[in-house]
């Protein structure tokens, strides 16, 4: 391949976040909690609609009726001039392509036609197995199916037609300045090879049918697509609605667990996003598409995960897919001892994340001071003189026995399936090791282009490390056959989900178009269908979000305590992405921090046992009241007072604190009663 212009959609994987309001803001294009140039505000904040990059403030999070706004996933197009095999980072500058853009070869973009197809296969998919994770799919096995009362195997049309939500694809042209809903009314449409939008009236759409319990409104859409004034795509998610079937007694089927509730549906989803460029000379160019995932709201967008989805995805690409041979050689299975990670891009984010945990957890003062010292480390510090010398307090992911060792090893939150505690990825650990050996760079920078930055930022704002099953995505992001492996040759660029080829021109209106789809560890390399990422998440998402606050680590290890601590000691599940305890902004006076409050509080949340704190005590309340939660954002983005820029405080909660029984936040470590 030589001198080829390729077009890519970025972020390669982007996240729309559910809200209860028709209004929306835009997905963040910066990386959570990291410093930014020329502002005290750190990365991760969503963007005001209609702007390039203006951060939202506390006044932009809810609409006039107090409903939680949705987060639209904004996709941009970039052109790259490739000469030979691609590299990462790409050597070619990235040129953003909007309507009216002129390419280096003189062509002018007349229009951009976007297609997206979102589906939700959760109810038709396999159960999440707490203790097994992805290994539940190993050795040719699969877990049991959800909703086993519905006859058939995972591909059975009878099951898919009853359990899958599939509104079909939607295509829109930027020039039309229109939108298209993923509902049962809007006709399915797609783009043909000539760049024309074709309506597919026969597409077999599926939504939950029959008598349904729908506590927050009818589950009749998975969202919509529209374009902005420059022709970029916005994917809006659903409204957080759920639907439940009724049992033989005429009652809604109860929510009996956190992950695999039978008879329930939600309006999360995922699927491919693609685009076709229409040039003024009549030419048409396809682009390398992306993937959109519609899921949980971001209740703490700037609180960085110590292990984010980016860290997991980057790790698998480095170690399994030869992303950067200068870092790791997959043939020899070794990291390059001469590689120098960039401090700001590859080391500091871990330190920064550690210190940000204080805003969503009940860390004791000793830990706060230690984390202060970690965050204060700069590239000019001699590593052996810092608090992180020798990585004395970092759990080593290469030593399985350490995955059960708690304090003082960090990170201290609950671990991945089958393990007690979280660990940084092997690539993160390698970067830390290189830094600790004083073998790092302080001025190299990330080297990423604009589109690549979007890829990284998008994924870095999501929960990684602990995929039981996760918040936005699950363990499948660590599977190499999820992705386009031929990125160097094809020019697709890395981190791109492989789209299964779908011929929308040929549909059977009486049978599901989609199948059970891709699963991990079964050598399925023909790509993913819509719904093949979110189906590994809990159903409905609200029950899992609600319950994943505080746990004993034995929740991951079949109830047996393998840690070095007391079996009753409680730890945080997803502390960055799912706040446990917060400082309420309106209670901060003269920048003096008040006592923390549980992130989920108010009537129905009083917990006799601390392990149930910060949750709705009845699961049903989680599907009705999830949008009452506040959002933790930086002091610089909070209207109404002048807050310390280093504070991250909860705003816009809709809990009736006056009616709340006293349920104080205990300082960690704290214990379950049994």
């Amino acid at each position: 391949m030589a001198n080829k212009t390729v077009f890519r959609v970025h972020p390669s994987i982007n996240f729309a976040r559910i809200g209860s309001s028709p209004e929306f803001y835009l997905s963040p294009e910066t990386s959570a909690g990291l410093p930014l140039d020329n502002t005290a505000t750190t990365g991760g904040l969503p963007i005001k609609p209609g702007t390039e990059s203006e951060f939202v403030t506390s006044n932009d999070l809810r609409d006039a009726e107090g409903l939680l706004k949705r987060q639209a996933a904004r996709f941009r197009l970039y052109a790259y001039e490739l000469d030979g095999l691609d590299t990462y980072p790409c050597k070619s500058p990235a040129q953003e392509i909007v309507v009216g853009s002129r390419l280096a070869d003189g062509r002018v973009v007349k229009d951009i036609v976007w297609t997206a197809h979102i589906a939700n296969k959760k109810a038709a998919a396999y159960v999440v197995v707490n203790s097994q994770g992805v290994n539940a799919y190993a050795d040719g096995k699969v877990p049991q199916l959800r909703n086993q009362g519905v006859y058939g195997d995972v591909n059975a049309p009878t099951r898919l037609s009853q359990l899958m939500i599939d509104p079909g694809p939607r295509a829109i042209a930027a020039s039309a300045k229109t939108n298209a809903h993923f509902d049962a009314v809007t006709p399915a449409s797609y783009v043909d090879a000539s760049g024309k939008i074709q309506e597919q009236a026969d597409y077999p759409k599926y939504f939950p049918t029959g008598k349904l319990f729908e506590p927050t409104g009818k589950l009749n859409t998975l969202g919509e697509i529209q374009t902005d004034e420059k022709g970029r795509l916005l994917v809006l998610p659903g409204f957080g609605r759920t639907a439940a079937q009724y049992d033989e007694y005429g009652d809604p089927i109860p929510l009996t667990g956190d992950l695999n509730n039978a008879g329930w549906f939600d309006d999360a989803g995922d699927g491919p996003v693609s685009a076709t460029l229409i040039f003024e000379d009549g030419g048409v160019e396809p682009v390398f598409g992306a993937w959109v995932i519609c899921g949980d709201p971001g209740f703490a967008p700037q609180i960085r995960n110590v292990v984010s989805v980016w860290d997991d995805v980057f790790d698998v690409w480095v170690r399994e897919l030869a992303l950067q041979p200068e870092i790791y050689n997959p043939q020899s299975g070794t990291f390059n001892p001469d590689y120098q990670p960039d401090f700001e891009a590859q080391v500091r984010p871990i330190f920064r994340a550690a210190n940000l945990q204080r805003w969503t957890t009940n860390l004791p003062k000793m830990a706060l001071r230690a984390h202060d010292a970690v965050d204060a480390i700069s590239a000019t510090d001699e590593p052996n003189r810092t608090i992180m010398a020798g990585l004395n307090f970092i759990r080593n992911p290469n030593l399985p026995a350490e995955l059960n060792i708690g304090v003082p090893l960090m990170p201290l939150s609950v671990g991945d399936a089958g393990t007690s505690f979280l660990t940084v990825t092997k690539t993160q650990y390698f970067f830390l090791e290189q830094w600790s050996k004083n073998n790092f760079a302080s001025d190299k920078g990330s080297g990423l282009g604009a589109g690549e930055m979007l890829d990284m930022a998008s994924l870095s704002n999501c929960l990684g490390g602990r995929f039981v099953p996760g918040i936005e995505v699950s363990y499948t992001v660590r599977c190499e056959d999820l992705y386009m492996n031929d990125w160097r040759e094809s020019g697709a660029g890395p981190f791109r989900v492989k789209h299964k080829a779908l011929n929308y021109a040929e549909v059977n209106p009486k049978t599901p178009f989609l199948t059970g789809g891709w699963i991990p560890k079964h050598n399925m390399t023909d790509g993913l269908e819509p719904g093949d990422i979110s189906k590994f998440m809990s159903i409905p998402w609200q029950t899992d979000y609600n319950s994943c606050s505080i746990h004993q680590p034995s929740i991951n290890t079949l109830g047996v305590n393998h840690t070095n601590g007391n079996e009753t000691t409680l730890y945080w599940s997803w502390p960055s992405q799912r706040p446990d305890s917060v400082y309420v902004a309106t209670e901060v006076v003269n920048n003096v921090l008040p006592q923390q409050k549980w992130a989920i509080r108010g009537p129905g949340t009083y917990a006799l046992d601390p392990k149930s704190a910060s949750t709705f005590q009845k699961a049903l309340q989680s599907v009705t009241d999830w949008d009452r939660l506040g959002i933790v954002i930086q002091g610089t983005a909070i209207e109404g007072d002048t807050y310390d820029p280093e504070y991250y405080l909860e705003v816009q909660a809709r809990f009736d604190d006056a009616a709340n029984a006293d349920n104080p936040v205990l300082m960690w470590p704290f214990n379950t009663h049994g």
Partner: protein
Amino acid sequence: MSIPNSPQAAPPTWDIQHLRQHLQYAVDLEFWTIPFYMSAMYSIVDRSSDAFQLIQSVVNQEMLHLQSAANVANAFGLSPSFDAPLYVGQNIPHLNFSLDDPDPSQEPQFQPYSAEIGPLDAARIHAMCLIEYPDWDSDDKPNLQENVSQYANIGEFYRAIRYGAQELQDQIRGGVKQVDFFSSFYRNMPAMTVTESGKNGFYQVGLLFDLITDQGEGIAQSKDDIQTVFQNTADDRNQELDHFDKFEQIRTAPLPATYPLKPTSEYTAQDQEVLEILLEHFAGLRKNLRALFNGKNPEDFVRLMVSVGAAIQNCWKQGVLPRFS
């Protein structure tokens, strides 16, 4: 907690200076154990090993004991100092095993022993057992020798201090320069600090002494578990075991692999540097401890405390013997 008969029945035999001297010695002794135990712990290659975990749980409690002794000292008007501990020969500050009958240090299972900084080997674990050796005659009247180095074991040492503290309980002033980093790790403890004065303050003082001795060598000759109130509720899987029992577990099992040591003649400039860093951090920590227990709330205390551990481990990884002065 047991309360001896009324001290008012007899004239005081201790004066406040004598008691403060004892409290300073208590701080000295608790402080001395921390680098000694930490050095042995960080010499172990496998951080997940039972030996590492057991010693770590003891080190954590020694820090609690240091806090407790310093809090009591402040309640009696003494803000303790933190001089550089010395690790020479078989000298353990204020303990003289030969005063015990029989002398445990002469028992074959504790021979040889060394009070010098070193890796977790037989000499070190023997010394660790001896330091935490039970007080076999705790029902007897405490030894009230003027020479405060003449205590057979820690139990007897604290019984003597308790005696003096009770006699002088009217001089206890609660809420003076008290420090608490550990209460959430001991959810069953009523108090980790001395907040009351006089008699009620002495109840708290006695509780802290009981905490130290029960966690350390257990109550006298009994083989009972640590009382529930003194058990760690957070990060100790063997929370019911006292220090002596934990060290005995290590002593009676195969010792884990430790980092090899270089002769000092082979130290490189980098080796010298990690040693210098440890010395700097430890000196800074001592200064910060002095400030911490003198009401100064030093900002750098936690960083230095954590960094000392990291620096010790760095030394071992390079084959360098840690030093603290």
